């Protein structure tokens, strides 16, 4: 382990998942630390989305061990914790059929916060994504880039430890991509970890902490820019490391 590296808040151990006869993920181990911005690459069908959905507590793996701050837990005890700590954003994020304001407030209302706190937090989120003027607009009337920003803000207001962004800029134009990259870098500055999936290894605008690659169901670490040290240690159990 690299010295001075913060302790991982979540350790994923020997995770496997198959669908029918097909093995999607094989014996994957991964440490997650606060504020890491991880690029996860892999071809179509390599299992990126499956891995993210398991991490988000939305999909049960066939085999996995979870350690939260050193405490080992089974899936039954883990998935609720994962849902509390991690927010998953689909490739094409789903926005509820209501206003931008109500979408961003959705998770805050579930936390039973006061109306005043919710209003303040939503205001901050709208400011973060520069969409204050669209607060009362129905989300179905937004452009693709605006939807993506609202989805990020909706997760951000919940102050998660980790956000899982599944190819968030794949269908966006250059300007919208730039805005999203800027937002993602700001999440990292606030010590919110991000796992960002992409087909492409080149996402130059992001201040990446590490690059991991899924191939044949196995996870490998890829080099970042030469001058940029990686702060991750993948377990020995992970093939190819």
């Amino acid at each position, binding site marked *: 382990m690299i010295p001075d590296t913060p302790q991982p808040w979540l350790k994923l151990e020997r995770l496997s998942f198959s669908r029918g006869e097909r093995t999607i993920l094989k014996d994957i181990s991964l440490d997650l630390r606060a504020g890491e911005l991880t690029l996860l690459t892999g071809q179509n069908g390599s299992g990126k989305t499956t891995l993210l959905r398991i991490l988000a507590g939305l999909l049960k793996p066939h085999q996995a061990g979870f350690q939260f701050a050193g405490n080992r837990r089974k899936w039954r005890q883990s998935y609720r914790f994962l849902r509390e700590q991690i927010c998953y954003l689909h490739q*094409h994020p789903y926005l509820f059929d209501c206003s931008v304001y109500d979408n961003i407030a959705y998770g805050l209302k579930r936390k039973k916060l006061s109306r005043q706190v919710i209003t303040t937090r939503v205001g901050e989120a709208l400011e973060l994504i520069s969409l204050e003027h669209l607060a009362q607009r129905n989300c179905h009337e937004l452009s693709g880039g605006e939807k993506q920003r609202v989805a990020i803000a909706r997760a951000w207001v919940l102050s998660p430890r980790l956000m899982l962004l599944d190819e968030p800029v794949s269908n966006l134009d250059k300007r919208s991509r730039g805005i999203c990259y800027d937002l993602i870098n700001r999440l990292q500055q606030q010590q919110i970890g991000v796992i960002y999936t992409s087909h492409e290894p080149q996402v130059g605008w992001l201040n990446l902490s590490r690059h991991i690659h899924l191939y044949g169901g196995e996870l490998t670490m890829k080099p970042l820019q030469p001058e940029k040290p990686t702060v991750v240690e993948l377990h020995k159990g992970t093939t190819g490391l």
Partner: protein
Amino acid sequence: MESLSAASYQALYLLFTGDSALWTIIGISFSVSVRALLYAAPFGILTAFLLAYFSFPGRRLLVSVFNTALSIPAVVVGLTLYILLSKAGPLGDWRLLFTQDAMILGQIFLCFPLLVAMAHSALQASDRRAWETALTLGASPLRALLTILHETRFGLIGALVASFGRIIAEVGSSMMLGGNILNYTRNIPTAIALETSKGSFAEGIALGLVLLSLALFLNILLGQVQGKGEVIQ
């Protein structure tokens, strides 16, 4: 036999002068059918949700059963429940036969498959990402379910309206289970059947007009609600 125009005129007269016998029948009809729908709706929608969102053994068989049950005639439902509820039947001790509760029971059995089939279609067409998004934003499964119902509300309202339309106008089950007792179990369809058999068309037409008006009203209501759910250009 009175002429159609004279009977229609008298029907309107009966309706607008607040003929108590007529309005009692209308009241019973609505009371029974609304209660049947209220009892059936939560279970029907929940069943549809489970069928649409979860995999379990026998799921496809259940979907087929509900789709098949759509075409069961009301009179068959009435007959089956009549046998079960009659004094010699296994549920005879409940003493439900020829009561409004028996009519409600029959109407629940009639509308449940339609409700499940239509709600299942609506929920099946919904976006699974909505469910996952609600969960990842901290919603409990129950809250996520309510969110999904909100997202699919247009289809679900359509299912409710169609189910109500089926039971408010059915005659076979109500006649057999309610017995067409005046001021107690006589509803619009059984009254129309009785009045027509007596050759008293005015009351039959008046009640028919109520059913037609109801159908028109429900369709306008559905159109209004679904109109707001149009695809945004």
